[in-house]
């Protein structure tokens, strides 16, 4: 009898169960087990958040045009690699190192020899600093992906590199330090559980600065009216949204920074309730505003709900998660229209889905927070308006700092290496003009191998349209 591999699973599981007490007995130390479980959940959550890069890749390429499909992939790859390297070298130290209320300044170039001194916030944590880094850097990559989503189809590749280095290495870590690194906002009781403002709003603010400095894509606005530039694949875009939804289980669920003593199931349930409510809200608003069920707005609605619940997911009850999500979804389509009215070209809808929903989610803590979970009651639970005020100036500080810093960096890029692709490159598509290859070559050129080069004797000739139109210059 052949033993199928999956039959081994219960046996292995049983062996592992037997092994756990053995380890515990040997070390006589339950801390080791707790550390292993916490670390396990950390890495799983980190990988889920890293998987969101696939989600952004699909969402953004789906909503771009065929002629730019490969350039979007190149952008996702360079942004992930820059985020990893910059955050490892300096970003993590600036965000979580020991410093003042504004910025951290210890623990450069991980790992650290003395975690307790370099990263006082992590002194109590059982999870190794490398795993902490992996989890945090995945958030940086998400934030950076949002920035460039709004700048699709018209940005020079070199601008991604320049901005990515300064964003992952300086701008993001500073704002993250204010709250998560024990900075001045944390001292004042500002709450942002998983980053509605730190990750999503920041990304959207940089995106706003970028898209304003870039200007709209050619042909987007004509005679003062917005012209639709449809993305080339709605199925890919919505696949991206579903991947993002899956990744959000790690994004919010892992943000308790431990597995033991934290009900991350509650956080994840809230997360998905808000996502569902966001989809429903955006669908309703789309039906009333556009008289049609706009599929891309449904996808954006899911993201808006998820972004809005990111800050409050651990601090609110399930009914509040539904309200937070549905409001984020309902306000999305009107904001899309309003942005086009003022001639802002945002191909993937990052500004409403990550920016406005991020602000709403951060402020929502002031209304819906439950003392049991958040340590403070929101207004709707009889609390004072104090928390709402703290949330408000936390958002205002983020807006002021990130918008200014990002605009400065983008302007510097514009007047040095250049931010925007030339008109000819944009018309031709960035795939061929910047990368020399197409995302979908058959759409643009006849690819060798589509027809037999030499016909067998007696074989009918190929159809006239299929003549080979390429000639090799050098063989590989």
């Amino acid at each position, binding site marked *: 009898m052949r033993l199928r591999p999956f039959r081994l699973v219960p046996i292995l599981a049983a062996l592992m169960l037997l092994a756990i007490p053995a380890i515990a007995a040997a070390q006589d130390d339950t801390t080791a087990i707790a550390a292993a479980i916490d670390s396990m959940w950390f890495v799983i959550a980190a990988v889920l958040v890293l998987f969101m890069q696939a989600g952004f890749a699909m969402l953004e390429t789906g909503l771009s045009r065929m002629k730019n499909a490969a350039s979007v992939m190149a952008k996702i790859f360079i942004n992930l690699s820059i985020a990893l390297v910059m955050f490892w070298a300096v970003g993590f130290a600036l965000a979580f190192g020991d410093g003042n209320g504004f910025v951290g300044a210890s623990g450069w170039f991980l790992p650290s020899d003395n975690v307790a001194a370099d990263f006082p916030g992590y002194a109590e944590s059982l999870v190794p600093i490398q795993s902490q880094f992996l989890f945090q850097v995945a958030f940086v990559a998400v934030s950076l992906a949002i920035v460039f989503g709004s700048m699709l189809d018209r940005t020079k590749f070199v601008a991604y590199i320049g901005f990515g280095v300064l964003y992952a290495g300086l701008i993001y870590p500073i704002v993250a330090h204010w709250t998560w690194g024990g900075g001045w906002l944390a001292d004042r009781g500002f709450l942002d559980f998983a980053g509605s403002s730190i990750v999503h709003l920041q990304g959207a603010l940089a995106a706003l600065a970028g898209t304003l400095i870039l200007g709209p894509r050619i042909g987007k606005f004509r005679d003062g009216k917005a012209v639709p530039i449809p993305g080339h694949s709605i199925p890919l875009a919505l696949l991206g949204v579903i991947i993002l939804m899956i990744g959000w289980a790690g994004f919010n669920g892992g943000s308790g920074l431990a597995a033991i003593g934290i009900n991350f199931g509650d956080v994840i349930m809230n997360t998905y309730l808000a996502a569902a409510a966001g989809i429903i809200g955006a669908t309703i608003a789309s039906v009333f505003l556009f008289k049609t069920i706009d599929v891309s707005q449904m996808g954006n609605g899911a993201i808006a709900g998820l972004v809005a619940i990111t800050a409050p997911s651990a601090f609110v009850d399930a009914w509040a998660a539904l309200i937070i999500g549905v409001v984020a979804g309902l306000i999305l389509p009107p904001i899309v229209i309003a942005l086009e009215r003022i001639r802002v070209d945002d191909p993937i809808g990052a500004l409403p889905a990550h920016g406005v929903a991020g602000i709403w989610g951060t402020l929502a803590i002031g209304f819906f927070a439950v003392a049991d979970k958040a340590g403070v009651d929101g207004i709707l639970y009889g609390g004072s308006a104090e928390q709402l005020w703290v949330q408000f100036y936390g958002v205002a500080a983020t807006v002021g700092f990130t918008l200014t810093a990002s605009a400065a960096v983008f302007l510097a890029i514009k007047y040095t290496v250049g931010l925007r692709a030339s008109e000819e490159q944009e*018309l031709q598509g960035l795939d061929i003009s910047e990368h*020399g*290859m197409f995302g979908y*070559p058959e759409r643009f050129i006849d690819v060798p191998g589509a027809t037999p080069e030499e016909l067998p004797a007696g074989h009918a000739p190929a159809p006239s349209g299929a003549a080979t139109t*390429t*000639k090799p*210059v*050098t*063989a590989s």
Partner: protein
Amino acid sequence: MKKIEAFIRHESLEAIHDRLAQMGLPSMSVTEVKGSGRQKGFTESYRGAKTVIFLRPKVKLEMVVDDADVDRAVDCILELAHTGEPGDGKIFILPVEESIRVRTGERGDVVLAPHEEAPA
């Protein structure tokens, strides 16, 4: 009766169509074509292997107009398709024997008379 065949850049098509429609000449056929000419091809590079693509995508606009409308239609295309760079395209004018409207069976100039664009 003349047939105008214009090979133009993609990006000029919409402006030309709008202007011709305002002039009462919205009837046209448009085809995506590939062609070569003075404008050089471009190089595609895939994993280090390079290929020159000598055909570039263009739009072919075809319309049959009354003799009286030929000049203004051509002027319109000339003005709006012009950038001054190689690759702006070419216009050809061909004689046409007869025009017949399928719906009514009418023949001749009446088929080509300038008209409003049908409402969408």
